[in-house]
């Protein structure tokens, strides 16, 4: 009489089947997707996708302009200008800090720059040099 250990584990069989099936499907589909014709199909899809996006953008721009509402490109332009202002501010701030440090009045450093751990750590198998 077979012992319970000899009984096939259905769960394990299913898991093995899943791994094999996944591998086979991946391999089969990769073969299909590696052909020139699939490449051309994908290229065509990207082309249609781009064209569709362009048409939607153009129509939206026209409609928003008719309604006297700022379009995406207007907002982008504004965002770009804001970015420029931010950068100028950061540069001015940095220059002011450098100036304050130069005349001996360092501005309050950020908390993270105050962290000064000792930089003397050595690897475990390399003991610290004797002082």
């Amino acid at each position, binding site marked *: 009489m077979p012992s319970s250990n000899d009984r096939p584990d259905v769960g394990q069989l299913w898991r093995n089947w899943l791994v094999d099936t996944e591998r086979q499907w991946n391999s089969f589909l*990769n073969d299909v*997707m590696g052909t020139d014709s699939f490449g051309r199909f*994908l290229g065509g899809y*990207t082309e249609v996708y781009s064209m569709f996006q*362009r048409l939607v*953008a153009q129509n939206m721009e026209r409609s928003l302009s008719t309604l006297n509402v700022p379009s995406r490109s207007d907002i982008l332009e504004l965002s770009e200008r804001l970015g420029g202002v931010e950068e100028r501010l*950061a540069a001015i701030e940095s220059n002011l800090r450098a100036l304050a440090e130069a005349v001996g009045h360092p501005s309050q450093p950020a908390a993270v720059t105050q962290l000064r751990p000792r*930089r003397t*750590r050595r690897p475990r198998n390399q003991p610290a040099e004797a002082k």
Partner: protein
Amino acid sequence: MATVRTPGKTPLPEFLQTEVVKRNLDRAQRGMDVLLDRDPPVVGATPKEIVYSKGTQRLYRYRPMTDEVYRIPVVLVMSLISKPYILDLSPGQSLVEYLLREGFDVFMLDWGVPRPEDSRLGLEYYVLESLPRNVEEVQKVTGEREVSLLGYCMGGLFTLMYNGIFHDAPVANMICAATPVDFDGMGLLRRWSDRRWFDVDRLVDTLGNIPPDLILRSFEMLRPAQRWAEYARLVDNLWNDLYVKNYRLFNRWIYDQIPFPGEAYRQLIKELMWENKLMKGQLTLDGRRVDTKAITCPVLNIMAQYDNIAPFDATQPLSTIVGSEDKEDVILKGGHVSLVAGRNAWFRLWPKLSEWLSVRSV
């Protein structure tokens, strides 16, 4: 009055206490958690502060966890196409946390989520402008001249390009993880972006930044059956807390894609996918040649054997194109993500990384 039990018939309360029922109830509850995204796992939780920021890009410094750290700080350079929390996934499963506990001073360069106007940013911006500026900030904060750079995926490409252009760059050590250099080995991704049928100019000129969906779908197509098999495995393992937690963590990261800056994408396709210029030593950025043979610092090249995004054939030649004498290849089983954040990473890669880096960071 004593209860009389009918032989062979299990009363309901006892039946509910059986292992099988408990396991299935657990499964159902965890399944609902996943479906409804209840109590999503915490990611990127290691305490950090911003040291420097510009536009969407942030340089973080993680709070050191030891009183004494190695002299040379480590700067993690992220890829452009994904969020950085894969390197700081979850408490106890975080490369950043591991490095901090091992006594490293860790910084992270996160490019952020590109805004529509960032579509004009090319590789020149990232390699010639931003990376050097961030290294300067690390130098300022730590007071150390040298840094170790650890680039993941495209972040590795950036560190390689940076080192190949600035020969006097203060890079003490360079670690590249899942970094493709030989684009002839990019497999299906190269085939799909073949110049005969892929009009990258039209795509970038129309869309600006490449939408995250397009990138995610192309990665998914590399292993089309994986997603369904993952679902089946999840159902099978719904009783397993750790499995479900990891499934949710990894999936959150995988589907949390960000747009790819248009101009950088155009360059990546034309200069690297089509011409393979980095491998041939012909890549120039703003007229400056990327001379990888001039890189002489110690180099650690970490690769995954079954990586489908940066295949082994594309990552393996990295150590052959650098001029360093001190270089080492580490090949692990697993894929693109599990390389840096899976079980292989916890037990094999991270200790190896710490060991390699520690003797070179004093």
